[in-house]
């Protein structure tokens, strides 16, 4: 570990939290601004990763392993979400060429 102490002298945990906030915000911008459904999925992955960084940072800061365990669960959920989302997109792309999420507004139950 080479004597690295976060929250102590060498590295401050707040930098990790700030980075995670910035990443989450950039992901939110992407979801709101971009039009391609694929890119919107990518941006959701980005936001999930920012949350993971927050969890790991607090876990390290409190020296409590539960944050890391929850991060593992979160990675699993993110992978499952990506798989199902991409499957839906493949199903949609197969019938027509969609470049804009507004063209998908007629989807109903």
């Amino acid at each position, binding site marked *: 570990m080479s004597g690295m102490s976060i929250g102590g002298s060498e590295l401050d945990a707040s930098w*990790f939290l700030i980075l995670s906030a910035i990443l989450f915000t950039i992901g939110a911008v992407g979801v709101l601004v971009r039009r391609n459904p694929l890119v919107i999925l990518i941006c959701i992955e980005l936001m999930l990763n920012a949350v993971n960084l927050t969890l790991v940072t607090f876990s390290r800061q409190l020296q409590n392993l539960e944050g890391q365990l929850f991060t593992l669960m979160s990675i699993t959920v993110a992978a499952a979400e990506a798989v199902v989302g991409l499957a839906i997109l493949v199903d949609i792309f197969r019938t027509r060429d969609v470049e804009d999420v507004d063209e998908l507004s007629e989807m109903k139950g």
Partner: protein
Amino acid sequence: MAVVGAVGVISFHEPIRSVLSLVVVMIALGILFLLLSAQFIFVAQIIVYAGAVMVLFLFVIALFGPARELARANLRFQSWLAAVFVLALLIVIWTMLSGVQYRQPDTTDLSVFGTVQSIAVGLFTTYLYPFELTSLLLLVAAIGAIYLSRKKVDDQ
């Protein structure tokens, strides 16, 4: 590096470049996890995210061709609304994070913190039930993906 990659994700117009910049973000975050003494999370991040999920995205893009994004937006004030909303979001997160006060850390031995062994002990004793639930979730996701992407058979 992570921030540069993230900006690249939302600013490139071709989806394949977005995916490749997301890989940069993933690897940078993985290195940060290693810095935060979360070795097992680092390995999981590299394998699951930078490996599997990104390959999945690249597959879908390669399957359906490089669809370029249209520049126009149907909603007129969408970018302004998005800017306002995101600014509010950033302020909310900032105030939440700036009010953070840490309690006294648990006295865990840092030499074993975040190793595979310590994570496995937590995962298979205290959190066994959520762990089994995640495996069930993965099963459901796999079945759902197969169901959604199967070839439609006309039953006549």
